[in-house]
């Protein structure tokens, strides 16, 4: 475990020593801030309209602003994760530093988990940028806290899952561009799967729908914490990290 933390620490330092961390945080902050602006503007407009029509029923900030916003954040992560994970192992392979890691007395799994943790920390920092906007809602409104927390948990789990997949793909090549590109398409595919299958009820469609990474996020962003979805993400993370460790081992045989 100490070794995994050492690797994670090194990864975090590397991310923040290069522009990539700041770039991702800034980009995400901007996009999220912009959507926040648009949705809160609409919310105020709708509120004024409702008042003029004489409706007394209060509108829910959670339903109208936070839920779609965090759901949208889930979509943005599809684009962010490849940029976080593409260098994880591909870069070590290209520069030869993988030889230092693989000839040091640490286990492959410690390397894999350490790198996953390091990428997760960056992901959390990026995701954390959204809290600036969410904080405004809490200052001027009274949204429910619990659904927000559940939505964030969902985003973190989905991020962890995509990062694990990205890490696996990063072990298969020494070219960062390929690692990033393939990860992006895999993420996109997992996301689109729910579109392909949404209207169909056949078994294949149901399986596809279940595997689609975004359908599980929907419940979270509604504020529903179900064990089924948590388990889905956890098992996907485990599966992807397991594949990563297999791939690392085959690296030795092929290298």
């Amino acid at each position, binding site marked *: 475990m100490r*070794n995994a933390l*050492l*690797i994670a*620490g*090194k990864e975090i*330092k*590397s991310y923040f*020593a*290069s522009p990539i961390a700041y770039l991702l945080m800034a980009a995400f902050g901007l996009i999220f801030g912009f959507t926040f602006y648009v949705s809160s503007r609409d919310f105020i407009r709708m509120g004024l309209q409702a008042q003029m029509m004489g409706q007394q029923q209060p509108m829910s900030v959670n339903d109208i602003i936070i839920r779609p916003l965090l759901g949208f954040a889930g979509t943005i992560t599809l684009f962010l994760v490849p940029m976080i994970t593409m260098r994880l192992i591909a870069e070590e392979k290209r*520069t*030869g*530093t*993988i*030889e*230092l*890691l*693989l*000839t*040091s*007395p*640490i*286990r492959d799994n410690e390397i894999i988990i350490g790198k996953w943790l390091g990428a997760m920390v960056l992901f959390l920092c990026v995701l954390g940028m959204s809290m600036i906007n969410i904080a405004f809602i809490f200052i001027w409104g009274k949204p429910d806290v619990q659904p927000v927390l559940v939505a964030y948990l969902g985003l973190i789990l989905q991020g962890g899952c995509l990062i694990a997949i990205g890490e696996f793909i990063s072990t298969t090549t020494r070219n960062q561009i390929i690692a990033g590109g393939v990860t992006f398409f895999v993420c996109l595919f997992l996301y689109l799967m729910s579109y392909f299958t949404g209207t169909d009820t056949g078994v294949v469609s149901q399986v596809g729908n279940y595997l689609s990474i975004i359908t599980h996020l929907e419940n979270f962003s509604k504020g529903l914490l179900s064990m089924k979805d948590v388990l889905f993400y956890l098992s996907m993370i485990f599966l992807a990290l397991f594949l990563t460790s297999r791939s690392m081992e085959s690296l*030795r*045989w092929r*290298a």
Partner: protein
Amino acid sequence: MIKVEGLTKRYARTVAVNNISFEVEKGQIVGFLGPNGAGKTTTMRILTCFLPPTEGKASVAGFDVQEHPMEVKRRIGYLPETPPVYPEMDVSGYLEFAGQIKGISSADIKKKVDEVVGRCALGDVRYKLIGKLSKGYRQRVGIAQAIIHNPPVLILDEPTSGLDPKQIIEIRDLLHELAGEHTIILSTHILSEVEHSCERVIIISSGKVVATDSVANLTNRLRGSEAVAVEIEAAGPHPNVSEAQQRLEQVQGVSRVVAKEQKDGRLRFEIESLQGRQIRAELARTVVNAGWNLSELSSVGLSLEEVFLQLTASEKVIQPEKTPEPTPEGSEK
């Protein structure tokens, strides 16, 4: 300390290392010599548990590389061909990281980094980013990384490649310093390197060991014949080169006379004897009898370079003495 038996590494289309065996005693510096692509790096990677062998066994300090990789890795310091450094880290940060993943506790790490920074003369660049360092410094950072946990065995893949002569001498000195307490294997394709730093040499070519011996023995063994440089000076008229050459060739026991440069009326020849013949006395007499002055008569040792070329060109020269079974002539690429 290091024992390799029948090690083979096969790839889909090529055999990188073909059934090699050797042993290295504790405290020795052994040079691993061979042309590019001979299998040096592959062998080192197997020893450091980076690659698994296809066949055969290798053990370090009594631990098998396949059965107890962790124990082996703990006892090895490894400098790969390109120093495994992270350009975005500074030297001390990198060494702390490398030391800690090699098992140094966080309480000791500062002290160990200080020690190794001093030893590898990295004080000036300690807080610089590795990406900004010159190749020589990077190489030294790579060596620092290999020795930081004070491993009993050091495996260095071309430690002096890409360095300038001054840096090469510094690295050599460092290796000599380390030699007593560490067992060192270093690979190189530069021969003078081996002559300077190593006690023993293992020459491999096309994935096979073609010779293992002490550096001195190896040169001697191939030097069954004697090579002599002769410089003559004409007392009177300038001697004719071809005439002089002819005369020298007629001396008993001479196998070959090569005319070298001539200047100010001095002629220089390099003369090789037949196997096991002493020719110097006879040469001197011939020269003097011909009425020339003998201004130099010295023995020319065969440099390791020539030994190396001979060995890797025709493996048969030395093979029968060392290993009983002759190797097939057509070797794998």
